[in-house]
């Protein structure tokens, strides 16, 4: 007898997983965000968040830190990925590997190492915001390089030939072919760097001596004392991230090869 599974049956484990680890937790967060300590429905946390200049300032700072981190990552990663994808080098995977290797080392160790390095240069404690961004760029760079590299690698060689045939110079080729076709890679790179740079408070604690506060730290601290406010902050962060993902086109399914149409 042959065992046959319909697509529906095969999907059950995933559906269960999504239900228990994504949907239900999300509903719990929403529930906690809109209740008070006596578990009554309340908008108090919402109002308190938006009437407190500290919380708004912190979310703005986090946004700015995350934007700068993402921009710097993109600026560093794009040329690297481009050179690696387009070059005829034989051993280029070694270089790629070198960029990605830090990801295999424990995160705490890496941050500690950066801390020692900054201490040695003399920046530790002197430039907290710079240190935080520096650490984040270092930590999240591989997340930007990898998606860029894979999309750039996928671009059909014949497109470059066509561009050259039609008299396009290097700049035109880049703006008309490479850049539009690598948009999906840029979008997924941005998503993968942006979110952790808003929440990864280990970096800001260790390298900014806890003097830099990002929104993730707020969530952590509130979950020690007031889950309702913590959930509200988490929910607002979720919305911010959702918006930014949507704006960068991270939700589009078939943007892979057609990015051009929108530009």
């Amino acid at each position, binding site marked *: 007898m042959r065992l046959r599974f319909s697509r529906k049956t095969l999907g059950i484990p995933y559906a269960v997983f999504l239900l228990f680890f994504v949907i239900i937790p999300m509903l719990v967060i929403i529930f906690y965000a809109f209740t008070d300590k006596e578990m009554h429905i309340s908008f108090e946390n919402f109002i308190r968040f938006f009437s407190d*200049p*500290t*919380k*708004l*300032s*912190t979310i*703005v*700072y986090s*946004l700015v830190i995350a934007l700068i981190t993402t921009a710097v990552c993109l600026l560093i990663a794009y040329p690297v990925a481009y050179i690696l994808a387009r070059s005829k080098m034989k051993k280029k995977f070694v270089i790629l590997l070198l960029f990605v290797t830090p990801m295999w080392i*424990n995160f*705490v*160790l890496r941050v*500690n190492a950066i*801390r020692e390095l900054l*201490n040695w240069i003399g920046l*530790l*404690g*002197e430039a*907290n915001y710079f240190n935080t961004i520096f650490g984040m760029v270092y930590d999240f760079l591989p997340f930007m390089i990898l998606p860029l590299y894979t999309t750039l690698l996928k671009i059909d060689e014949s497109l470059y030939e066509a561009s050259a045939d039609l008299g396009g110079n290097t700049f035109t080729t880049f703006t008309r072919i490479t850049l539009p076709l690598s948009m999906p890679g840029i979008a997924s790179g941005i998503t993968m760097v942006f979110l952790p740079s808003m929440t990864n408070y280990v970096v800001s*604690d*260790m390298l*900014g*001596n*806890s*003097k830099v*506060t990002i929104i993730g*730290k*707020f969530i952590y*601290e509130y*979950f*020690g*004392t*007031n*889950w309702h406010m913590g959930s509200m902050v988490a929910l607002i962060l979720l919305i911010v991230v959702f*918006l930014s993902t949507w*704006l960068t086109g991270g939700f589009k399914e078939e943007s892979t090869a057609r990015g051009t149409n*929108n530009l």
Partner: protein
Amino acid sequence: MKKRRISALLLAAVATLPTISILAGCNSDSEIVLRVYNWEEYIDEGGEDSWDGDPDAPDMTTRFEEWYEEQYGTPIRVEYSTFGTNEDMYNQLKLGNEYDLLCPSEYMIMKLAAEDYLEPYDESFFDASKEENYYIRNVSPYIRQMFESNRINKEDPEDDSTWSDYAAGYMWGVTGFIYNTEYVDAADLPELGWNIMTEQAYRNRVTTKDNVRDSYFVALAILYKDEIAALDKTADDYTQKLAEIMNRTDDETIAKVEEVMREMDENIYGYETDTGKADIVSGRIWLNFAWSGDAVYAMDLAEEEDGVGLNFFIPEECANLWFDGWVMPKGANKQAAQAFVNFLSMPENAIRNMYYIGYSGVIAGEEVFDYVCETYAVDPEEYESEEEFLANTTTYDLSYFFGDAVEDATFIADREQAESRQLYAHYPPKAVTHRCAVMDYYGEEANENINELWSRIKGETLETWAIAVICAGVALVIAGVLLVKFGGKIDFFRLPPKKGYKRVKQEEVKKY
């Protein structure tokens, strides 16, 4: 809270130990299970670093299992788990996790008692005539008096039960500053007191704890410095008066504390939970606000690495006295839980724990005193002349702590040790503990206010107009992106077609 927090890596390794012992334990029907919930790295975990120094030395829970079975004839299994902060522990308890024995700090014990989570100790637990009641037979009279004189539920004036009704002590200590003797002149410190934190000369060279209660205490001490100094230290009600000042949480105080905390925030190098020890040993910072147990650890470390000279300073005005104690939540197996507390209170076990974790235990008694002497007493014959001996040593008196358990609780100690180093931090002299105040549980409303104050200090500050401008900017960006995305579908936003071209309607495009 007063725990030495080692790097996450080590913790992860350590955390697996109890799990393994749980897995190894076999299940049988008659077996009792004791669920202990304690701070990370807050008990003798056996092995090479333990008192015995033997890699195979069993941990404290295994020793307890053997002892209990021998004593009471029933097998017992300890399910040991750990937490990192008092708040984590509280959340776990609130979520419905069940334990038999917890080890929170004093204010959390008070909070739990106020919220009616706790089971009182049996009266028989305090019967010193029974041999197995090691806790009451060995606890230091100083700690005992502390536990019997502090009311546990300050929210309810009717309730006059004290800490000792619900809690048995485990570890205790004070707060102060570790300082680098190379950069900091010890003579400057007494006058500054807690104002070290706002002193310009130490700008960017001093740290505080990334923890609201400790920083609030420091700010209070700075704020009410003059009032504290004016208190008569010899008066009978000195301790009460000091405690009243150091537990103020009225709105006016909070508003003033906010200003002090801003000043601190401007001046300090940073907030830390476990990087402070490394930073002071490496010489990066000069002063580190620390719990006494951490101070001992840092000074030991600095000695081993022969890097910097570190000393410990406890401000003249006042210091924070803290305790971690064992409490039983409702529904606990009281018999087994109390047996565990008694087992830990056997002097030899108290020494094992103290040796392993580096904090000061609440247990007094001959053996503990011998251990202290062994660690800190000096041999007069090591000094070449009488003058040298007199100049470098002092008589250290710990009779307030050991009470009747030791006939004469004094010994000759190195002067530096006694005045500013490990001994001073490990077992502070009476003069220090006399000026210590306990930080109570603030009560729910005050707690909330202070947490909000903390988030204002820690969070970023922008002028309102700046927030408005940035929000407007974000809105513009969103609008811009929307325009690029959907603007193409609205004729108004589309550029006019070039000469000779005709605009194609969206519907026509779809046809192809």
